Each structure stands twice: as C-alpha cells, then as structure tokens.
C-alpha cells in the first residue's frame, strides 16, 4: 500500500448524496479476479447517457476536472454493498482522497485498507468545496494527514479527525495483516483457552 502523508490536488465535485457502491462500480464489472484495472468502469452508468454515449455534463467527463485527484460528494458516500472494487476503481482512476460529511462504515474501512483517504468535514465545508470546485478553473486543496489539516491556497484551513491507528497505518503504508500476525502469541493463547 502506498504511504499517505500529504497530497495536493484538484477538487472534483460530485454534488449528490447517498452515493452507493452500485453507482461507483456497477455489478457487471465485479466478475474480474484482479484488483486493478477498474478505473475505466468508475461511475460507469452516470458517465453515460441513456444511449450509451458519454454524458458531457458528468464531472468525470468534464475536461476541467480531468486531472482531479480529490473527490468531494454529499453525505453518506459509499453506502450499500461491501464491494472493495469501489475504492479500487476510485484509486485506479487517480483519486487519492474522498471528502464527504459522512461515509458508510464498510466503504470507509475498504478505503483505509487501500490507502485512499476518506476525509470527513462538516456539511457546510463540503458544500463550500463543491461550490469552489465549480467556480474556479482548477480549485486545489492540500490534505495533510500528518497535521490532520486540509487547506487551500487562499488561506482557508480546516482540521479533520481520523482514528490514530488508521492514521499511522496510512502514513506508514502498513500491511495490516503483518501487524495482526505480529500478535500471533495472543491469538494462539486465545485459541488454546477456547478450544482446549
């Protein structure tokens, strides 16, 4: 997993609430057995009009947002299915950060596991970012995980909260399985007391 310390990138606005993982990556793309290559399928149906041609109004299709790496969306982002293909698709498309006022639990964990940083901000702040991303030519923010701060070049700054273990894991790019395996003695003790 790629370590995450700080990232500056352009904000892409997705002004919708309760974005579910079926929209992030529709089920027909879950039949592959690899972890990579899902970026092309990100928001597959929303990127297209009914006749299958690209919808030029959808944020990912707009030239202005082509190089965006920070997605901002409405509340409860990533609800629904547990498919980890959702963060895989976001990362593969080039996103390093997703900002929302709230995330669904499983999606949030899946992000942590893959080095995609979900940042929770108050609703008035996500609304502000959605507006600025539309107004500016290329609105950029810096997400600093070390300082737990998000800021823009105009002097705006906001703290965000994140679980200390998650923060350490993301900063180190920690292999969580290795970490659990380092607690083998405790696992063995637990099993012995349970099964003997």
């Amino acid at each position, binding site marked *: 997993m790629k370590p995450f310390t700080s990232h500056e990138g352009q904000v892409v606005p997705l002004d919708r609430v309760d974005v579910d993982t079926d929209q992030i990556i529709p089920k027909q793309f879950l039949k592959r057995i690899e972890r990579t290559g899902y970026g092309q399928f990100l928001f597959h149906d929303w990127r297209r009009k009914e006749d299958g041609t690209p919808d030029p109004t959808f944020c990912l299709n707009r030239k202005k947002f082509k190089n965006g790496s920070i997605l901002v969306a409405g509340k409860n982002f990533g609800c*629904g299915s547990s498919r980890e293909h959702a963060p895989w698709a976001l990362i593969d498309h080039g996103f390093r950060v997703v900002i929302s006022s709230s995330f669904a639990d499983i999606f949030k964990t899946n992000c942590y596991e893959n080095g995609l940083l979900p940042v929770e901000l108050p609703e008035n702040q996500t609304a502000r970012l959605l507006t600025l991303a539309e107004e500016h030519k290329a609105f950029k923010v810096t997400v600093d995980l070390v300082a737990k701060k998000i800021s823009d070049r105009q002097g705006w700054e906001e703290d965000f909260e994140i679980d200390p273990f998650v923060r350490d894991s993301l900063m180190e790019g920690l292999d969580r399985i290795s970490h659990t395996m380092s607690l083998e003695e405790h696992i063995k003790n637990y099993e012995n007391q349970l099964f003997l």
Partner: protein
Amino acid sequence: MLDKIWDRHTVHTQIDRPDLIYIDLHLLHEVTSPQAFEGLRIAKRHVRRPDLTFATVDHNLPTTDRSLPIHDDLARNQIAALQKNARDFGITLYDVDSEKQGIVHVIGPELGLTQPGMTIVCGDSHTSTHGAFGALAFGIGTSQVEHVLATQCLPMDKPKSMQIKLSGKLSKGVTAKDVILGIISRIGVDGGSGHVIEYTGETIKAFSMEERMTICNMSIEAGARAGMISPDATTISYLMNKIPLEDIEDVKSLTDSWLDLASDKECQFDSVIEIDARSLEPCVTWGTNPEMSIPITESIPNPEKATSQEAKQAMQRALSYMDLQPGVPIQNISIDRVFIGSCTNSRLSDLQAAAAILKGNKVNENVKAMVVPGSTAVKKEAEELGLDKIFVDAGFEWRESGCSMCLGMNPDILNPGERCASTSNRNFEGRQGKGGRTHLVSPETAAGAAIAGHFVDAREWID
C-alpha cells in the same frame, strides 16, 4: 449483548489501537474472494482456520438448468477460481451441484453453521442477516477477507449500540419486510451508521427465525454495521433441528449459554428508538434507495415538501429515474416484472406466503414473474410441498437457487425502463439491470402485484 459477544472475542487490546477480535465463522462466495486468495499466495500465507471457513457459489450463478455450461466466461472463471482456491487451501465448498448450495446468508443458518454468540464475517454486506441468531455478523471487504483467512482475526473498534424497540401486534398482512422498510424510512439510509442495531420488543419476539433474518438482513440498508436479536426459545427451537446434536455433550448447558447472551433488562444503549408496530402498513419503495418508501395506501411524495434543498434534489432525481409523478397513488403504478428471491425473502416461509396468494390465480398478462429459492434445500423442500406447482400454474418461472436478479450479476436482469416488484433489498439505480426500476416489497405484496399487474394492498389478498 454486543458487549458480551465483543468481550468474549477480544484477543488483544491496546491503548489507541483497535481491539483484535476473533472470528468464529467466515463465509465466502465467488465474487469478493479471488483477490483475497491471490493476496495470500503472493505473501505465501496459508488459511489459518480452514475448519471455520465455508464457501459457496451464489452471486453470478445462472438460475437455469445447472447441467448446462455457464456461457459468461468471466462468471465461469470466477467460479472456477473459487473451486481451485477451496481445493488448494482446504476449505469446504458447497459447489454448484451440491445439495447444500445456496445464497450464503440462507445456507449459513440452514446448515446450523450460524449460532448464537458467534462472530461471523463474509465479504458481503448482507452478512447482518445472521445477527437474527444473536450473533455479531457483519460484511467486510476483500482485504479484510484476506485478513481473516490469514489470521482468523480482525482489528476493530467496537461499534456503538442502538436499540430499536417495536411494541404492539402487527396487523394481518403486515410482514417483517414491511417492518424493516418502515424502520429504514424513519431512521434513514444512514440512521444506523457506526452502530450495531439490536431489535427488541414484543413484535420482534413474536417473529419466527426467518422473519427475524429478514429484519436483520436489511440493517445494512439503514447504514448499520450489524443487526441483532437476542436468542430466545424461538432461536433454540430452530437450531435444534439444524445442528448435529449427537456431537454435543450437554445440550442444556449449550442452550442456556445462548439464552445468557440476551441483553440484560438494565443494559444501556447509545441510542434508543421506539416504534409502535400497530402504525405500520405494507410498504413499497418509490425511489432509488431503501429509505424512499411509503405505505401502500399512500401516493408518490412531492419533492416540494422536502425538508431540505439536498433532500429535494435527491427526490427529484429519484422520481426522474423511476419515471414517477408526485401525487399518484402507488396502487395505480403498473409493473412489468416480479422477482421473488434474495437473501432478504427467499426462504421457505417467504415462498409459502407468496404461494398462498397465488394459488388458483394467474399472473397478469403484462407481467413476467420469477421465483428464485434461496437455496437448493429450500427449493427441494418447496417442491415437496408442491409450491413449485402453484407458482408454475400461476405463470411464474421456477428457478434454481442463487442471488439472481437481486443484483443481476447473472443473466437474470431487468431491461431498461422495466418496472419490477422485487422482494430483494436494494432499489439503487441500475441495481437489477441498467435502467431497470426496482420497487422493494414483501413476498405477499409481490404476489398480489403479479396477479393484479400493479401494486396492491396485500391485506386485501390474505384469507
């Protein structure tokens, strides 16, 4: 109950670190597991407890003749990958041709694998279903599937607890599905976020295990980490028919330990919601998430009356996708398809409830209807009771078991623009097929709608 199960499964605690929780039962299916096994191979790790790990194929399996080859190359490869992984790592697989095959959340309880007090995970969000037995059961992503395969543990912070207390007797024709849809419409699709919901109260106590599974199954649609119900006599009586009693030394002490798990009367929840069950009616969703539902007696809501600009936009978007107009009574909405199935409503009692309404009736000529039993065992049992004949005589297609049109990963999908009364759990855009319009309902409402060709009040169709 959450505290009791959590404490019993804590392997290790450390300040500023999540607890390390032991997992008693790990269920696998073909879609979310291949990358986990690939990860094990790359890191040269083995499966720590293959004896606590069970796999089946359900998500992308066709529900037509099982003796025929699977045409979809990707689906076939994914199933082949699971077969190989189960073989290589010594995991029990209930394969395509097994009598024990079925939707993972239907077979867990059916085979007696799911038991009170357990921690249960699966790479599927509807793992919350198993909480009906007083287990802590939740969905995980593929990385965590790999984590559990390798270590049988997960690092986790304890979720908060929420009590949803249902009092009063349900009126006839109001089902467990209507209850959970009613709950989600009240608390919202993120109302349970960060929480484990425990459902309590006399309404829940009166439910059978299959009804309890329907309730816990959709906890995730309220955003909850898990749903659970304290074990009681109903739980024990169900399990006595499922688990191999001859292997158990002292059945009484086992069942007593299950009953001890029940939440104590004086226990504190982080939040409490009380609902009068008598206020609930049969429900139909009108929008594109499970919160967007109304009682069958009502009309499509008006976005102008939304409480916020955000909610108004979401409603407008949903109505546009669903091609519905505000103010139209839901019973006036015609349907093209009916799907009875999914881990929410595909158990024997669901099929019996639908069959009771369909018996002697015909599916409307404008409607195409199918029923997909939750497991091969449910299918067999239903056939022994002659339910298949009732469905087929009415004009339903009687299929092999699997997830089928709940998520449309196999060939069972809606065509663009088709409107479906579905007993499944998600009405997200395109869930049952691109452009398809899903209305979530109970098996009773689905059966009535199949006959009438539009949504009906199931209370009028029940003897």
